């Protein structure tokens, strides 16, 4: 399935700041078996964009399609086909990872024998089997993040949306998370994730969208971006784009 | 030193008041709640009073009778509010509501059998009053017919005069025959009741801020930053408790003012409640009394906040803290109203019991008892208890002592053992 986002806008209001657009006319496409990275600084509108796509927020205007599903018109069908992990998602502190995965798996409509297998395979893939029956409140930050990732994809969605998935993970865990995402890509999933870490985007993404101040400044493969700006390293590419945007503004 | 205290105090106060929503539910909700409660209930009271006065009381006479019982029966039959009913199984008819009361001859008195606790006092006194009034009438006529002055039937008159300092002299005329109706609850001022009831609201107001400065700090992990601060922890605790008590005192007072205004309005419509008038709510306080009341109220706010902080300090999650606030809340629900018992006064014994002594002091100041040594002792006791509670809370908060966790571990261990046994089997 293919994710198509067109002219997505989300307007916020704060008494102190007045009205502003957290995402402003955002369009992108993610094909099957493709990893799309939203790269931007904190407060650029990454989380809002992803939340709108995952139906938790309502778009002010614009449209989003996942295959044949109109995400905004048929949110239930869209939810069944996507997994979402936001940066602020919490876990039930008094339940164990196994219980949480079972709970969310069943809520998402995964049937019993398949669910057990799926949970076991996720334990293996994300490497936290030894904590499977400990209470979440007692887990380390990294393990919690792994549980959250597992929670988001327990129903084997065709679109995976991760909001800064590597927060709180150490080098080894990040590595295994990357492996996992690549594995998912090879299975033909569509993957959208946001990050503010350049190296992660560089290593993982097929295409990158650079986002700042609610707008996508540029998008394309790494080489396309390099061509556009004439810089080599992604960090410099990013800086060049932001500088150009500031100048225009 | 002072600056640290001020900073902590302002931070905790701001943290609790950060939203404008907080203002809405600390001020607007109580202000709207009590009046809306009253809309309609005044009407219900009227309906009730009206239907009560229209309804007659049914009574029955059971078992053997004699002259005394017949005399009462005869008097009641003449009164239009009473209706006699014949009954065979008196207690069964009582239970079924066919008859309100049953008169039975006992060895040395007449028993009035009733099955509802709430009706007991009123029914007996209604009957006794009716009988007395009829007897008085009979007496007056008898004296008059024999050529004596009819005032002979009244014996003499008794007047009670309350010479209390605040100047509201009360004159209560006695009843003419039979028991007098003056109750000893006369120093139970409705205003004082409202003031004491508002203590519960004060406790409720203290509950959430105290969770915010204890358990929530653990949940949000801000306690670590507090631990790292290079300032005295006592100062932090002091800042916390003063912030909580400010919040508590404000919410208690807001509720009191709202309730008082509502009550004053209702009572001023004297026609709805003929037995009360607006005068029952009059303050008539000397300025020194007013200052004393405010000081006492603030002292209570401090004490209750300290207890609240203590109760929530050994919780590590907001959820469990909420449950533990039930303990201090229950104490506040039960203890202060005890001060309304007429025979309970502030003396050398009661002054040692925390919270109750403070409430008794509130009552004493309110009724105009002059300043004496008990007030000093009460203040010291309250401060000492607050200090003790806060010191313990400080240990639980900052010294990594966690009694709750130990309990949790024990239960977890037990559950684990049981599970192991199960898997073995």
């Amino acid at each position: 399935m293919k994710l198509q986002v067109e002219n997505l806008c989300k307007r916020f209001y704060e008494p102190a700041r007045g009205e502003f657009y957290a995402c402003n006319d955002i369009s992108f496409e993610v094909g099957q078996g493709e990893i799309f990275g939203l790269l931007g600084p904190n407060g650029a509108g990454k989380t809002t964009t992803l939340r709108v796509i995952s139906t938790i927020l309502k778009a002010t205007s614009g449209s989003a399609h996942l295959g044949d599903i109109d995400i905004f018109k048929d949110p239930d069908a869209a939810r069944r086909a996507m997994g979402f992990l936001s940066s602020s998602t919490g876990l039930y502190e008094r339940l164990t990872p196994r219980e949480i995965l079972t709970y969310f798996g069943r809520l998402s409509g995964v049937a019993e024998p398949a669910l057990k297998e799926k949970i076991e395979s996720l334990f293996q893939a994300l490497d936290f089997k030894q904590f499977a029956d400990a209470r979440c409140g007692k887990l380390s930050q990294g393990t919690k993040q792994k549980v959250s990732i597992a929670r988001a994809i327990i129903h084997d969605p065709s679109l995976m949306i991760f909001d800064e998935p590597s927060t709180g993970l150490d080098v080894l865990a990040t590595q295994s998370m990357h492996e996992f995402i690549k594995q998912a890509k090879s299975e033909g999933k569509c993957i959208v994730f946001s990050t503010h870490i350049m190296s992660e985007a560089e290593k993982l993404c097929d295409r990158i969208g650079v986002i700042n101040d609610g707008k996508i400044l540029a998008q394309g493969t790494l080489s396309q971006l390099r061509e556009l700006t004439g810089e080599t390293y992604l960090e410099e590419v990013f800086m060049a784009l932001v500088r150009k945007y500031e100048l225009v503004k | 030193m002072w600056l640290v205290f001020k900073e902590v105090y302002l931070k905790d106060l701001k943290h609790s008041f950060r939203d404008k929503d907080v203002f809405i539910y600390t001020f607007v909700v109580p202000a709207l709640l009590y009046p809306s409660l009253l809309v309609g209930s005044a009407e219900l009271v009227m309906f009730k009073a009206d239907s009560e006065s229209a309804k007659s009381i049914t009574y029955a006479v059971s078992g053997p009778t004699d002259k005394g019982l017949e005399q009462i029966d005869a008097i009641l039959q003449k009164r239009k509010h009473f209706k006699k009913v014949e009954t065979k199984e008196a207690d069964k008819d009582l239970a079924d509501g066919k008859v309100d009361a049953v008169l039975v001859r006992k060895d040395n008195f007449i028993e009035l059998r009733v099955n509802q606790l709430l009706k007991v006092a009123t029914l007996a006194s209604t009957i006794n009053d009716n009988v007395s009034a009829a007897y008085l009438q009979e007496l007056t006529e008898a004296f008059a017919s024999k050529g004596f002055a009819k005032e002979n039937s009244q014996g003499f008159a008794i007047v009670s005069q309350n010479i209390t300092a605040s100047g509201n002299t009360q004159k209560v005329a006695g009843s003419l025959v039979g028991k007098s109706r003056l109750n000893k609850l006369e120093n139970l001022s409705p205003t004082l009741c409202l003031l004491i009831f508002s203590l519960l609201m004060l406790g409720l107001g203290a509950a959430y801020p105290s969770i915010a400065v204890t358990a929530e700090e653990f949940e949000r992990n801000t306690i670590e930053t507090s631990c790292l601060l290079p300032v005295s922890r006592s100062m932090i605790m002091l800042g916390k408790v003063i912030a909580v008590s400010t919040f508590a005192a404000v919410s208690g007072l807001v509720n009191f003012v709202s309730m008082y205004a509502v009550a004053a309005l209702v009572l001023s419509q004297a026609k709805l409640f003929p037995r009360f008038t607006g005068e029952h709510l009059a303050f008539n306080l000397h300025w020194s009394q007013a200052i004393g009341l405010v000081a006492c109220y603030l002292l209570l706010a401090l004490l209750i906040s300290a207890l609240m902080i203590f109760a929530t300090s050994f919780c590590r999650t907001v959820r469990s803290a909420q449950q533990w606030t039930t303990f201090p809340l229950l104490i506040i629900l039960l203890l202060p109203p005890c001060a309304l018992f007429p025979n309970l006064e502030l003396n050398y014994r009661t002054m040692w019991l925390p919270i109750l002594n403070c409430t008794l002091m509130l009552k004493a100041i309110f009724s105009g008892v002059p300043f004496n040594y008990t007030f000093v002792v009460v203040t010291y006791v309250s401060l000492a208890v607050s200090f003790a509670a806060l010191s313990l809370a400080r240990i639980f908060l900052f010294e990594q002592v966690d009694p709750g966790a130990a309990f949790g571990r024990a239960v977890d261990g037990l559950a684990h053992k049981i599970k192991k046994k199960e898997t073995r089997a």
Partner: protein
Amino acid sequence: MNWLNKSFDFAQIKLVFVKEMLEGIRDYRSLLPMIVFSIFIGPLFTIGVPIIAAGQVQHELNERFVVAFSSPPGPVSKYLKGHREFRVVELGELSKEQALAAKQVDAVISVPDDFASLLGVNKGATAPIATLTIFYDGKFARASSCAARLRAVLDYYKEYVVTERLKLANIGLSRPETVYPFVVTPVNKMFSASPFVQSMLVLILVFQAFMGVIYPSLDAITGERERGTLEALLSTPVRRSHLFIGKLAAITVSSFAVVMSTLAGFYLSQFFQIKYFSFLPATLASQLNSPLAVGLPLPCVLLVALMMLPLCLSMAASAMALATFARTVQQAQAYMLPLMLITTIPLSVMALGEVHLDGPCAFVPFLNSIVAMDDALSGRIAPGYMFIAAFVSVAFAVTLCTVVAPVVDREDILFGIEEAPARRFAEQHFGRELFFLCSTIFLLMFYLSQILVLKHHLLGMALTQLLVILLPGLFLSLFWLKLPPLAVLRLAMPKGGILTLLGSLMLAPLSVLLAGLLATLFTKLVPGSAALSKLMEEYMGLNSHPLWLLLIVLGLMPAVCEELLFRGVILSLMPKRFSTWRKVLTVGGMFGAFHMSLLRFLPTGLLGCVLTFLAIRTASVFPCMLLHAGHNMLSVFIAVQMKEKIGASEMVVGLLTGLVGLAIIIFAVRSAEAKEKIS
């Protein structure tokens, strides 16, 4: 059952339920106080109350009051000496005020000099009555209880004096005996509780159910929102209503557990009763013991438990509904305050007395279960109505859940996202401003206008109309929101022009007729309503003012002011998405509630609906003003001038005029609309 399975996915509900229960049970720290604590409430009351009562009695028995006389006591002193509880002392140097203030004496009795001489039989037509005065200092509890005891004792002395006089005058009358109350323990011991338990069990159980509901519901809705787990849940395809019902079941169970442990405490405490009044003579002791006896048979417990379940359910549903609208736990906690009012229902049921589960009572959620329990405790069992009560509670809870469930998706509550005020106003979202307006008017009505009316009667009413009703609405719409005055207040020629206006005025007799019919119906149904309307007439001062003034203040002014507020400002601030019917019902309901009277809610609410409909259909406020003014003035006129019952002929005239008016309006509006279409 098929439709039930189709509309509810029970597997999903069960899943949510099991998860919530698991999470709840694992929270030992909260579980402990919740359950253990509740068990002790029963013993606390059933043992504590008698102990306090016994202590009070004993205290009174042992207390000795110090009494002094401010004048020669005469025979009174001799009489008092026979009563052990009084110790008579001399005042000495002190004045009576000083002695009382220094607590040297509890009370001072002043006896008139000629007291003794007045005690004999007095001949003649009239005779002076001797007066004893008791002085005491009311701020000391001891002093006032001393005064009360003195009165009681002196009352007996008075009786003795009268008896002596009867002897002297040779009258053969004797004082009737006094009756002493005795609380009967119920006949049907298997199915009814003792009066003591009856009087407080329901109150405590309802309070406990409330306590058991608050924290789980805060945790299950607002807590999840605060901790970020709700976001994860919302990204799954689970149906919102199922999520709610699952959580509802878990919260109900938690509340029920608290209730059951409280009930268990009460049940157990009946086996540990002590004879508290053993220091008193046997008859007196039994008389005092019988009202405090604890009796709670098992069938009674089971029945109460059965009725508590629906109550817990409706309580849980309401708590959840309230919690859904809160962003933080603190906020949610404050929203629970109104729910606390439900815990006062048992008190009012008790105060009203003789309320039983029958007829309409069984269909009111909360009230039905509470009354059912009250009945069950006194051995009155109506299985049919109990079933209805349970069914109504379940339906209430499920409906509430389904209605409130979509709110969890609201982003303003979930993330605190709002729209800019200007944009909100452009889209006709005035919810917040309406709430503000209504609460301001309510508070002003309650405090300001009651005082005004009490103090200044008719002038107060006029001021109320201007200050409380007209001013806030105009201020909000014209000065704060800066809306166009003509459009907001609907100051336009109505559709159908003069004809519509005429028709509206002619409708007034019909509406008065209907209101009168409703009022008569109410007087028949609700006892006491006649007294209330009489009271209102007195307040309005119908009889003490000239008719023209009454017509203006009670007829014209409300019509103008209230119409501008309700059919002008409030109707214009209604959300755009509301259908006409919803607007009519909402504004009408608000109009009814605004009159702040249970009795008048239905007639005024109906009138409000009619007026709102008229305003919407004719697109003008003037027809409403005319109808309203006609209605009020006619009512005032009838109340003042036609005290006697209105005859059938007047009724027929009114009916016909009204029907003609209705026809005129329909014709005028229709033809105007037809013209519009053509053009």
